[in-house]
């Protein structure tokens, strides 16, 4: 019988303690953000949609090979000095934002942006083409790039460990 009343007492008292906590929260400022109006500031390292600056890219194909899900499509034409990039596409249906492509890019052309809300109605539109073939094709060979006044990465800034990773 003692247990019976102890149980009732415990039930009531613990319920009241809990209710005190929830009541206190009514007066606290909510922690949520009103999304479309307020947006969270993304930290510097945030991995959003991948962006490729094709003017810098020399189609070395490292990113495509390192991609665990094979979502990067690079097409080139020609050989050696006449090698030109004709297509650079990323299929964001497949992309998993792992950042393996960006950290091994020796030209620094591919980066993770801070965009994260690219909702679309048709998933085919999530295949992003970074090159318009009507514009000039991007030369891949360093000599050609210098010749045609394209951006080239400075020799001395090249990170040491990354060269030759591409099998």
């Amino acid at each position, binding site marked *: 019988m003692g247990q019976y009343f102890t149980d009732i007492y415990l039930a009531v008292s613990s319920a009241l303690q809990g209710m005190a906590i929830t009541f206190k929260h009514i007066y606290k400022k909510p922690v949520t953000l009103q999304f479309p109006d307020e947006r969270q500031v993304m930290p510097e390292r945030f991995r959003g949609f991948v962006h490729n600056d094709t003017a810098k890219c*020399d*189609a*070395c*194909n*490292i990113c*495509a090979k390192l991609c665990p899900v*094979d979502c990067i*499509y*690079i*097409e*080139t*034409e020609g*050989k050696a000095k006449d*090698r030109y990039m*004709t*297509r650079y*596409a990323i*299929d964001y*249906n497949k992309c998993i934002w792992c950042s393996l492509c960006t950290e091994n890019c*020796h030209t620094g052309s591919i980066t993770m942006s801070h965009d994260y809300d690219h909702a679309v109605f048709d*998933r*085919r539109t*999530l*295949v992003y*083409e970074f090159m*318009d*073939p*009507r514009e000039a094709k991007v030369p*891949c*060979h*360093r*000599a050609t790039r210098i010749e045609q006044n394209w951006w080239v*990465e400075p*020799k001395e800034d*090249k990170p040491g460990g990354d*060269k030759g990773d*591409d099998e």
Partner: protein
Amino acid sequence: MEQNAIYELLAGALGDGALGFTENPLEPWAAVETAKVAEACRFLRDDPRLDFDQLMCLSGIDWDGFDEAGKGKSVSILGYSDDGQPEKSDRVATGDLGVAYHLYSHALRHKFTLRVRVTRESATVPTISGLWSTAAWHEREAWDLLGLKFAGHPDPRRMLMEEDWVGHPLRKDYVMPDLWNGVPLQGQPYCANPFPVESGGPDKPAGDKPAEG
């Protein structure tokens, strides 16, 4: 207890069932005869000097293409062409299948690894689900993914794949079917280039070598 001491005890109990012990700084392991594995496990569990009360892991392995010296190459994925389709091979896998048992004793804090090998044709191992109940699901998974049959298993159904799935995905020679019950499995390619390019279609391999730095 030292690993080879455990093996000594096991070999003493099993007789010819124990096929050998591989010393190895990473993970020493003992090979036992397939038919004797349940007996070996029972001994390891019940002997008070060993007292392996937990089966940490039970892994099925397809040893096809692996040579014991470590020189072999995995042949499971032959590669993908650029449109994402896997390259199929008509090579028939021949190697053995195997099972590895990892045991642990909470009381004595020691581990032990057992391995058995079975031929691809028979692919039958005695079940140990009567010894550690956890083995039941691991064995079902091994059956599901590798097609290892466990003789005497109380509930030999598939674990993760559908009941009517054909094939065992972790076999090295497994090729994914195109259709399952009328459902296409390969998915639609969404990588088609919306801009037509005269030379170099999607089939052309991209970039033969990395550009000179």
